[in-house]
């Protein structure tokens, strides 16, 4: 049985002052034996660099040992050097090795640096926007094409995506919205009690949940859950050339991969919003019952009167819009991923962050545009 190659003899110098001052090397000069002793050995070797060298008594020497000596000698052979033939080859290789490329220079600081950085950012954003727009355009064209030939509708992909983004998200959205409903109801109830305005808990919960919280909550959860997985899926398919494979098979990936995701989210997200609304109101109702003694029957019968039904429709419409946006953003980032692992990570992060930001931005636009709708 052989052993793990052991460390071997320690490298050392043996100097003789007569006849001429010669440095003879002993021991093993290999990566293993050198490891921790590199700085002192290099220093010592440097001190002797002008002398005559004798390497013939070395036990064994490898690239690392040779490189160390080479550095100490100042990247050239010393004038007097005694070598064994196989060592000769080693040093010849070193002499022939190309210089390492110089490290990339740090960007030179100049007064214009901040300006150029802003410029780069702007160009980057314009690049993103134009790619995003063409993706949107492609999706519209695909829809038009399918309208002319409904048989090409990728039903299986759409239904699979609805299942993955909608049905499988039911438990987590239920949990989160139930808790938010309870917290919101409890905090509002404490305030309302001060004014004796207990019955208005129904108005507060109804409007805030149906109009704002439900759609935004569902959209943020879906952006984090499904948006990231869509980006990663497309990204990996790009890395493994699966997208190219689809393209050469004559299957446009915008039709088979992008459109089903967008359509599925446009269908699933309004349904999830409805679900989130219901569970959040349930949570609010439970907390209101405990804190304000408002009966469940009363809560439910008061709800239609307190909240105009327009709020529900507005919430559902928002859900559909958010769904389309999340789908577009995650596909956009997925298709831009470059074939390396770092880009995959960064792309997924950017996708989720952008999707959530876009959802909140668009929600604000909705709030302004529909400020006259559904407020009693």
């Amino acid at each position, binding site marked *: *049985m*052989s*052993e*793990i*190659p052991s460390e071997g003899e320690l490298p050392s110098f043996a100097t003789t002052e007569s006849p001429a001052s010669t440095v003879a090397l002993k021991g093993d000069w*290999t*990566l*293993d034996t*050198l*490891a*921790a002793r*590199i*700085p002192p050995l*290099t220093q010592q070797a440097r001190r002797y660099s002008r002398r005559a060298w004798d390497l013939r008594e070395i036990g064994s020497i*490898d*690239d*690392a040992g040779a*490189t*160390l000596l*080479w*550095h100490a000698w100042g990247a050239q052979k010393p004038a007097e050097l005694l070598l064994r033939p196989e060592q000769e*080859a080693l040093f010849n*290789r*070193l002499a*022939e*090795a*190309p*210089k*390492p*490329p110089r490290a*990339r220079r740090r960007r030179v600081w100049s007064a214009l640096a901040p300006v150029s950085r802003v410029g780069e950012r702007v160009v980057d954003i314009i690049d993103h926007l134009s790619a995003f727009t063409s993706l949107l355009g492609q999706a519209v064209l695909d829809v038009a094409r399918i309208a002319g030939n409904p048989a090409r509708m990728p039903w299986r992909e759409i239904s699979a995506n609805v299942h993955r983004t909608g049905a499988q998200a039911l438990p987590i959205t239920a949990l989160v919205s139930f808790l938010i409903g309870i917290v919101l109801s409890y905090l509002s109830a404490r305030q309302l009690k001060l004014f004796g305005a207990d019955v208005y808990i129904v108005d507060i919960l109804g409007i805030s949940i149906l109009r704002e919280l439900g759609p935004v909550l569902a959209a943020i959860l879906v952006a984090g859950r499904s948006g990231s997985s869509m980006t990663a899926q497309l990204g990996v398919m790009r890395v493994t050339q699966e997208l190219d494979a689809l393209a050469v098979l004559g299957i446009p990936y915008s039709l088979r991969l992008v459109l089903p995701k967008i359509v599925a989210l446009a269908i699933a997200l309004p349904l999830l919003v409805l679900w989130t609304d219901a569970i959040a109101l349930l949570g609010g109702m439970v907390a209101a019952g405990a804190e304000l003694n408002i009966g469940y029957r009363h809560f439910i019968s008061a709800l239609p009167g307190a909240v105009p039904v327009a709020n529900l429709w507005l919430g559902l419409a928002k859900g559909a819009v958010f769904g389309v946006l999340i789908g577009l953003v995650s596909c956009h980032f997925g298709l831009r991923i*470059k*074939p*390396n*692992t*770092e*880009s995959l990570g960064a792309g997924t992060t950017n996708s989720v962050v952008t999707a959530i930001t876009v959802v909140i931005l668009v929600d604000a636009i909705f709030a302004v545009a529909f400020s006259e709708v559904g407020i009693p």
Partner: protein
Amino acid sequence: MSAIVSVEGLWTRYGKQVIHRDLDLDVRDSEVLGIVGGSGSGKTTLLRQMLGLDRPMRGAVKVFGHDLETASAADLRRMRRHWGVLFQHGALFTALTVFDNVALPLRELRALPAPMIADLVMLKLRMVGIGAEHAPKMPSQLSGGMIKRVALARALALQPELLFLDEPTAGLDPESGESFVELINTLRKELKLTVVMITHDLDTLISLADRVAVLADQQLIAVGTLDEIVNIRHPFIQSLFHGERGQRALAAVDGTGDSNDDVATAARNNIS
């Protein structure tokens, strides 16, 4: 001769499917052992078990005399510094440049100063025939042959005594495949390597391997030099060496007039 890697009574099973049934194999010092077998015969699984990436169901794999399953963490770490692995697809770190890929194992030692690492990296890259202009490139900018060369440079960075090659020439065009084989042959002479190589390419096998192990029917049906193997009557070996491709490969060897002559002759006699 001492065994660098030894596989003892190895069984592998996935579900109900038995991959390896009681395998025994020794890799001797300074030899090149080629492992051949049909697709799905468990070549790569065997390699992964030799590397300690997969555990065998039963049996043991010993590398440098240490059982991979019972070896201490320190022993394993020391062992891993003394072997190099070339994966089938290179397995370069896609987020690092060519230079950094080769420098990584050297940097992990935490002992070498940066200028020395730089010189060593350039030395290894030159050894595998990669020019300095490719050092700052990312792996995605390289061709398949170059990826394998860089991966080989990374495998050789710590100057290992033992080198594992998984399909070294698969996916390369014949010319780069040939030069890759030549490269391994030269390196092997210069660096005194023991090589365990998985391949299904006959040319590679003939020009590199000292001994051949044939995996088929869940077992090692034969281990020996090429001329010993060629004459064994087994359907897999027959189809491997005596099919049209096998004949061409052996005939090519015949023409060059090296010591494998008798292999080709033996093979041809065997058919007629």
